[in-house]
C-alpha cells in the first residue's frame, strides 16, 4: 500500500485521480496516431516517475502484462498492420501505466470510499450503502478464512489417503464456509445491525 503524502500524486484525492484516469483513457481510445499515443505513454511514465513508483525491480505482475502486450502486438501485426500494432501497443501500455499509477498512489480504503460514493445513486433501486460496506469488510475477512479452511480440509483428506480431487475439497469447504457465514450473520444480528428486513427467524440448525 502507498505511503501517505510521499509525492504530489499521492496527495491528490482518489476522486480526482479516478476522473483524470477516465479522461486520459477516453483520449487514448479516441487517438489513433502513434505519435500522439507515444506522447500519452511518455506522459503516463512521467506521472509514474513523479509518484516515485519503483521501476527497478519492475512491479509484481508486470511480466504477465508484458507477455500479454507482446502477444497483442504480434497478433495485430500479423492480422492488420505494423502501424496498427504499434498504436495498440502504445495505447495499452499507456493505459496500464496510468491505471497502475492511480492504484499504487491511492490507499485502498480511500479508493473504496470514493467508489462506494459513486454507488450512492443506486440507493433508489434498493442498494443500501451500509449493507454494501458490511459486505465488503466481510468479503475481506472471509478470503483468508477460506484459504485456511481449504488447507485444513486438504490436510485431513491427505491423512486419510484421499488425494486432490476437486469436488472432494470443494464440498466440505462450501458446506463449512456457508455454516460459518450463517454463524457470522447471526452474531451480527445479535448485535442489532439493522438490515431492511427482519433477521432470520428460522430455528437454528445444528
Amino acid at each position, binding site marked *: 500500500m502507498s505511503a501517505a503524502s510521499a509525492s504530489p500524486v499521492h496527495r491528490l484525492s482518489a476522486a480526482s485521480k479516478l476522473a483524470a484516469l477516465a479522461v486520459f483513457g477516453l483520449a487514448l481510445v479516441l487517438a489513433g496516431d502513434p505519435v500522439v499515443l507515444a506522447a500519452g505513454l511518455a506522459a503516463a511514465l512521467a506521472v509514474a516517475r513523479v509518484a516515485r513508483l519503483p521501476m527497478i525491480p519492475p512491479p509484481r505482475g508486470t511480466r504477465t502484462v508484458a507477455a500479454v502486450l507482446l502477444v497483442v502486438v504480434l497478433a495485430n501485426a500479423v492480422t492488420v498492420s505494423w502501424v496498427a500494432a504499434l498504436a495498440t501497443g502504445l495505447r*495499452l501500455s499507456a493505459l496500464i501505466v496510468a491505471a497502475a499509477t492511480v492504484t499504487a498512489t491511492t490507499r485502498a480504503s480511500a479508493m473504496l470510499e470514493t467508489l462506494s460514493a459513486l454507488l450512492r445513486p443506486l440507493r433508489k433501486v434498493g442498494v443500501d450503502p451500509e449493507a454494501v460496506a458490511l459486505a465488503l469488510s466481510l468479503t475481506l475477512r*472471509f478470503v483468508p478464512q477460506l484459504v485456511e479452511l481449504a488447507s485444513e480440509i486438504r490436510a485431513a483428506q491427505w491423512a486419510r489417503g484421499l488425494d486432490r480431487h476437486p469436488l472432494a475439497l470443494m464440498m466440505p469447504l462450501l458446506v463449512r464456509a456457508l455454516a460459518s457465514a*450463517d454463524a457470522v450473520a447471526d452474531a451480527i444480528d445479535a448485535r442489532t445491525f439493522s438490515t431492511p428486513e427482519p433477521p432470520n427467524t428460522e430455528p437454528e440448525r445444528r
Partner: protein
Amino acid sequence: MNTRDLARIALLAALTAALGLVPPVLIPAIGVPITAQTLGVMLSGAVLGPLRGAAAQALLLLLVAAGFPLLAGGNGGLGSFVAPSAGFLLAWPLSAFVTGWLVRRFRRPGFAPTFAANVLGGIVVMYAVGVPWVALTVGVDLGTALIGSAVFIPGDLLKAGVAAAAAVSLRRSLALQV
C-alpha cells in the same frame, strides 16, 4: 435481504477471490490467463440465485477496482479494468445473474440443467462480452479474437461441470433455496 444473505454474498465473493490462488495458466494465444476463478462466478449464480449471485461478483469487482490483489496471480487494481481481458472480468456479475436466472427456471435443477445454466451463463455470456472487448482493445476482428479465446473452452466446460456438481449437492444437503 437479511444479514444471512449478506454474509453468503460476501462468502461467494471471497470464494471467487480465493480460487484465484489456484495457480493460473497463461495460454500464449491472446494472453488471457486461465484461472479457477470463473468457477466462483458460476457457483455464485447457481448457489445464490440471480440477484445475490450478481451482487457477490459486483462486490468482488469493487474490491479489485479499489486495489486489493484478489484476481488470479495476485493481480488487482484499475489496471485489470483496462487490460485486453477486462471484458471477461466485467462480465462476471452478468454471468452470475444469467446462471442464477436459468437455474431458477427449473423446478428441480439436477446436474444436467445446472450444467446447462453454467455453460450458458458462465461461458456463453462471458465470451459474448469478453471476445468483442478483446477485438476492440486489441484491434483485431471478432473471428481472430474468438479463435484466440477458444482455447479456454475445454477448461471452462470442466469448471461448469465441477460447479454444477457442487451446486446440486449443496442444494440437496443444505436445502438451499436458489
